[in-house]
């Protein structure tokens, strides 16, 4: 995390752009910008700025937004719920759909079902999230009027309202993820299904479903979990596009807006948060291996 913190700060320091110029607005002079820069401490040398930031960070303070004057922790706090809701909803739906699809495709390898699932998978992988989002909005929001076009409602506004606002963004974001997991599940299952113990299970006369789920899928779970874990990074980057298209006030949009305005404290805070989350996810995935494969011990 310390390395990430140093690199993030250094990269932002070297990136062209000056928040003081953005604050001053189009109608400003050099002197206006210089005064604003001095007020914000942006004219301090690199080491002093870095030291100040690290000192505050060690005290749990991520700083204050240069533009809104609001604490970065508050800004991130406002955005956590929509992003977590969108990511979890997408993850749950994607895994629930993709794993059975991958298992069915593997069980019927070479059949039309397999080809159809793989064709869907290629399509899901190829269509950009924003294109899919527009198609979904055109069909289900402006066309049929079933679901809202944009925005987010907190779960405290009612579970149905919350879900209604998540269905289209999750569908748009989840398609790539479904495609990825379905392909990996199929490939892994095909490997496992060729193993001797599967043939033994079939020879014992076990039902095909029992062989697939009880024997094959459980043994294929470790690589699938690895991809699910890696895919969360994919989800986070996809969430940035999804949140922008559906105007969801999540962390992804906060990041993009901050980058466009060079709001350094927010960018630094969000990247640190993302790195911490990613480390925790990897840890969780590693620990989950023990559950799926008792031979694995740490």
């Amino acid at each position, binding site marked *: 995390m310390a390395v990430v913190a140093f690199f993030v700060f250094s990269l932002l320091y070297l990136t062209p752009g*000056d928040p003081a110029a953005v*604050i001053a607005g189009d109608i400003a002079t*050099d002197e*206006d910008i210089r005064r604003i820069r001095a007020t914000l401490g942006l004219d301090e040398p690199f080491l002093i700025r870095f030291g100040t930031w690290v000192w505050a960070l060690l005290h749990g303070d991520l700083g204050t937004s240069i533009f809104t004057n609001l604490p970065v922790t508050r800004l991130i706090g406002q955005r956590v719920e929509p992003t977590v809701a969108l990511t979890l909803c997408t993850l749950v739906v994607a895994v629930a759909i993709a794993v059975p699809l991958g298992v069915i495709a593997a069980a019927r390898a070479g059949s039309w079902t397999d080809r159809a699932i793989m064709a869907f998978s290629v399509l899901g992988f190829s269509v950009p999230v924003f294109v899919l989002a527009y198609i979904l909005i055109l069909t289900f929001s402006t066309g049929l009027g079933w679901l809202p076009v*944009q*925005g987010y409602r907190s779960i405290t506004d009612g579970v149905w309202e919350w879900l209604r606002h998540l269905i289209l963004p999750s569908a748009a974001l989840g398609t790539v993820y479904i495609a990825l997991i379905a392909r990996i599940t199929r490939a892994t299952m095909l490997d496992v299904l060729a193993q001797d113990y599967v043939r033994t299970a079939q020879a014992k006369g076990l039902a095909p479903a029992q062989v697939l789920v009880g024997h094959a899928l459980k043994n294929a779970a470790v690589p699938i979990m690895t991809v699910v874990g890696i895919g969360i990074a994919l989800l986070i980057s996809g969430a940035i596009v999804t949140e922008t298209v559906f105007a969801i006030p999540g962390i992804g949009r906060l990041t993009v807006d901050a980058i466009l305005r060079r709001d350094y404290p927010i960018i630094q805070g969000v990247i640190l948060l993302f790195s911490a989350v990613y480390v925790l996810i990897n840890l969780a995935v590693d620990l989950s291996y023990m559950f799926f494969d008792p031979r694995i011990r740490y």
Partner: protein
Amino acid sequence: MIRSFRSVTGACAVVALAMAGATLSGAALAQQKVLKFIPQADLRILDPIATTAYITRNHGYMVYDTLFATDAKFQVKPQMVEKYELSKDKLTYTFTLRDGLKFHDGVPVKSADCIASLERWAKRDALGQKLAENTEAWTAVNDKTFRLKLKKPFALTLDALAKPSSNVPFIMPERIAKTDPFKNIEDPTGSGPFKMVKEEWVPGSKVIYVKNTDYVPRKEPPSWASGGKVVKVDRVEWIYIPDSAIAAAALSAGEADWWEQLPPDLIPLLRKNKDIKVENIDPLGSMGLIRFNHIQPPFNNVKMRQALLYVVNQQDYLLGIAGDVKNGRTCYSYFVCGTPLSSETGAEALKGKRDFDKAKKLIAESGYKGEKVVIISATDQPIVHSQSLLTTELLRKLGVNVELQAGDWGTLITRRTSKEPVEKGGWSIFHTWLVGPDLTSPAVNFAIRGSGEKGWFGWANDPKVEELREAWFATTDAANSKKAAEAVQRQAFEFVPYVPTAQFILPTAYRTNLSGLIVAPVAFLWNVEKK
């Protein structure tokens, strides 16, 4: 076991109560008239003095009020002021505030608040600085009356106090107005017709305002920022939707009531919707401009700048910016067309037949030897980028060695501060646009100025235009003012601080259940009724 069961039951009950509470507050909200407005940009900075960003100016109009305001006939009208007097020697103004003016925290508006606010404004705003140059002192006579003593008569005193666009002299509580003018204020307490609900503000997503029930509107009908600011809804939600296609869909689906500025490509689509009205409610629109770097070759040579006057076709720029010539007009004036000081004096080169031969001749006379010209552009600002593409093409046709370097707006506005040559990260040309109210006179059109390195980016240095501008400030009647403005413009067309590209209006779109929108250069949200 029983204890944990009770804990779980208790927790469920708390959650259920919270949900019920949320539902109740949602029901209470449903009883209110809520105006959902999609603004032109995201509100990031709350201080309309520290920044000139138009979105912050618009926020300012929601929460603050002004002493005076300009009406649709360009007349200055009292707003917070009940009455004022000017002494016979024209050196002392005495202002008396209206009864019942209160800030959002319930504290009455006093003379000290007005003086502190105007002093802070005068440290940032160009016209404010001009007023400050002529000011001897502001003094409070009592809580409701205060005095401005001038060093010498300044005919534009009331125009300055009624300035309609950035920076607007908004009145804030003294405790806030004492803030360093280069530091953003955080407290949005004003005395305007709306109160900002800061706790509900989600930067990048929404800004919430509620009706200020203590506000006492004037009796006169609204006209631009003057007259009665009667609020006819309980709550206004500014919903920022960055994707224009989604904003259009949200308006069509009734998730928003009003979209402030339409991108040109979506106008035909929304015009087909019978539930939506697409209108031009901005009488002045905005003007695009080509700004030169006056301190670096080749545009430090006046002939290079003049060459562009002969080839810029405003119709092309209008199409590029607004998509349709109906969304604007050609305007061969440095003072926005449709205002008293606009004229075509000295504009022959820009207005006449497009003459590439003449332009090439001027370029040759300038001694141009193929130096690289860098146009910096921002692809996230369509108005900037469309102009940049057109200018690049024009310069190529003229045989200029031009390179378009496109980035984002944040990069452009940083890079344009560089005074270095293009080889060291400098620039030759950038494009932008200014709203009509910022171009009505030599007092507010800062881009026309020739104040050199102290001036706007590009650093045009033209002592003659500065001298003519001073002469304009000294005029006291309309006829002389017009004549003096024409002289400024004639000189500007000679010196070419920038090239005006087109006057364009980005229409607004609103659902048909709205009425009472005020025709003005700013989207004012008072007087708007929702059925």
